[in-house]
């Protein structure tokens, strides 16, 4: 027997609040209930000039780590917007259009392939350069080993390694990271105090990202938030397209690595055959250099002994 359910009246949130507050009309501003967290007035009267809007979204087929990374970045950076998952089959240049629709001038696009590899595109949308990274060692903010905490939209200090000043491609990446990951000053959703630091270091050809909470002003830090490692694959001149400016010579796609690993065992027989033929070619009948003229005067009796 089907249970008859009472149809809940669909009342708007504000109407419910009004009802709770009584039958007063909402013309008085004082009696209007404000949501403390989202309706907070801007902390500073100054206007923000550095207009950076970053669109962070993923493609379909992303792993849970990729999804959490997007969530964490959106949590930490107030100047970000998100969009629905994009179909991987559509052209990469579609991302530019999506960013334009959302009125964003930067884009972080996470691509998940084979349900295990995560790639990240960081791009300056209308004309600017874009960079493709392969992401590894993703750790989410939710993990209990990260004990720090920070204000949700406070401005971070961006700390870079000295390697970011050496080569032109690293300088370009540094500039891109500052514009994408740095919260603009006086952003309406940003919080006033500086209590965390984004750390970018280059080790072993990869860029390691860490997020630390500033506990004390003398430099005591505790790790908060997401942690990942980026391996630069290539830098393109245009946004998600255009001529290639830089290809990382040390970059090997994870597919290729897996392919080579698989092939290692398969060539065992072929290698062995090749080694045998080489050995045969190298082997000589003569163990020491002999002069054939020495054998001229030997008789059959001597050769026998």
């Amino acid at each position, binding site marked *: 027997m089907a249970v008859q359910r009472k149809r809940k009246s669909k009342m708007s949130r504000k109407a419910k609040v009004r009802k709770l507050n009584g039958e007063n009309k909402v013309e008085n501003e004082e009696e209007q209930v404000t949501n403390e967290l989202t309706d907070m007035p801007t902390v500073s009267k100054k206007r923000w000039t550095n207009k950076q809007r970053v669109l962070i979204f993923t493609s379909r087929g992303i792993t849970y780590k990729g999804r959490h990374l997007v969530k964490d970045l959106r949590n930490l950076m107030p100047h970000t917007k998100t969009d629905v998952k994009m179909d991987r089959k559509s052209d990469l240049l579609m991302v530019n259009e999506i960013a334009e629709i959302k009125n964003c001038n930067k884009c972080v696009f996470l691509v998940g392939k084979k349900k295990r590899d995560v790639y990240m595109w960081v791009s300056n949308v209308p004309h600017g350069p874009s960079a493709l990274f392969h992401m590894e060692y993703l750790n989410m903010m939710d993990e209990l080993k990260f004990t720090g905490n920070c*204000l949700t939209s406070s401005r971070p200090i961006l700390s870079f*390694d000295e390697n970011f000043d050496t080569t032109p491609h690293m300088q370009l990446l540094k500039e891109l990271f500052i514009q994408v990951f740095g919260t603009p000053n006086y952003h309406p959703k940003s919080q006033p105090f500086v209590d965390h630091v984004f750390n970018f270091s280059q080790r072993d050809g990869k860029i*390691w990202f860490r997020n630390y909470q500033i506990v004390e002003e003398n430099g005591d830090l505790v790790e908060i938030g997401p942690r990942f490692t980026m391996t630069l694959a290539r830098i393109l001149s245009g946004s998600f397209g255009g001529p290639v400016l830089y290809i990382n010579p040390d970059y090997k796609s994870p597919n290729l690595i897996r392919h080579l690993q698989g092939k290692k065992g398969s060539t065992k027989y*072929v290698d062995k055959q090749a080694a045998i033929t080489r050995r045969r070619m190298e082997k000589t009948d003569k163990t020491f250099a002999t002069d054939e003229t020495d054998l001229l005067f030997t008789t059959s009796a001597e050769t026998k002994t």
Partner: protein
Amino acid sequence: MLDTTNVQDVIFELKMSDMESDISDEEFHVPRLNEDASDGDSDKELQVAYASGLLKPGLVRPITAPAPVINNLDGLKQKLEEIKQTNLEWIERLDVTVQPHNNKENNADEVEDGDTDVHNDFQREITFYEQAKSAVIFAMKRLHGDGVKTKRPEDYFAEMAKKDDHMKKVREKLLALQRQRETAEKNKTNFKLRKYGKQVQHSVTIERHQKKKELLKSVKKYRKGQTKSLDFLDEPDDKQKGGKKLSQLQKLQQQKKLNPKRASKNKKYGFGGKKRGMKRNNNKSANDVSGFKKHVHSKKNTQRPGKNRRVQMRNRNK
């Protein structure tokens, strides 16, 4: 098949040193004339190889396709100029580039090599921490100079990146870890105490037995008439030379004086049984000659004197 003599002559001239392991596409590796021609085989090499008969006619696929390397420095610099925000002050960007020399000033004794081992997780994370620390110190100074408030006051409540529930979980986990450590330490100390207590108990029982024996002996002696006084019935004088009262275990340990042979046998066979794996060698122990005693292995009466000397000695004795 190849004419082996020709091939042999060719091989002794050329270098077959860099033969790659995964040859799956080609049957014969094309030997290289010069090792610095790393970007593929030049025409000359191919001609030589073809003439010698090593290279068969037809399409030869390379072992690995050379990876395309593009580094358009001018293009990169141009793009950098395009996106650079030259009109913004530092306060708008808050970026700090940390030089490693700052760290070296503070820790002079911790000499780091050019690049620390990436695979040593702890060391790597420490370098990141140090870098972030230097950046924070620099930035704080500058921000305070500009008059920007950086520290959140205690009464400023705002939305945090991690919810309170989550922080509660984190705190619980830390407490649990601490508790684990404490109990482990406690267990260790308890184990040691119990072991010591057992030893003491054992020694006490032994001492009691000994005392009883002594008492009975002295009673027997008295009965037999060997000793006339009844002093043994009095309480024994516990004060030793130093005037300190030793514990029962310590007294026993003082009395015990194992001869070295007994001690070595104990070490080998006692307290835990025969030691397994005593007769095993590794490189170090096999090459270790510290146990060799010269005076044991040398011939007695060292050198036999030579013939002349022996003759002299014989003549002297005669």
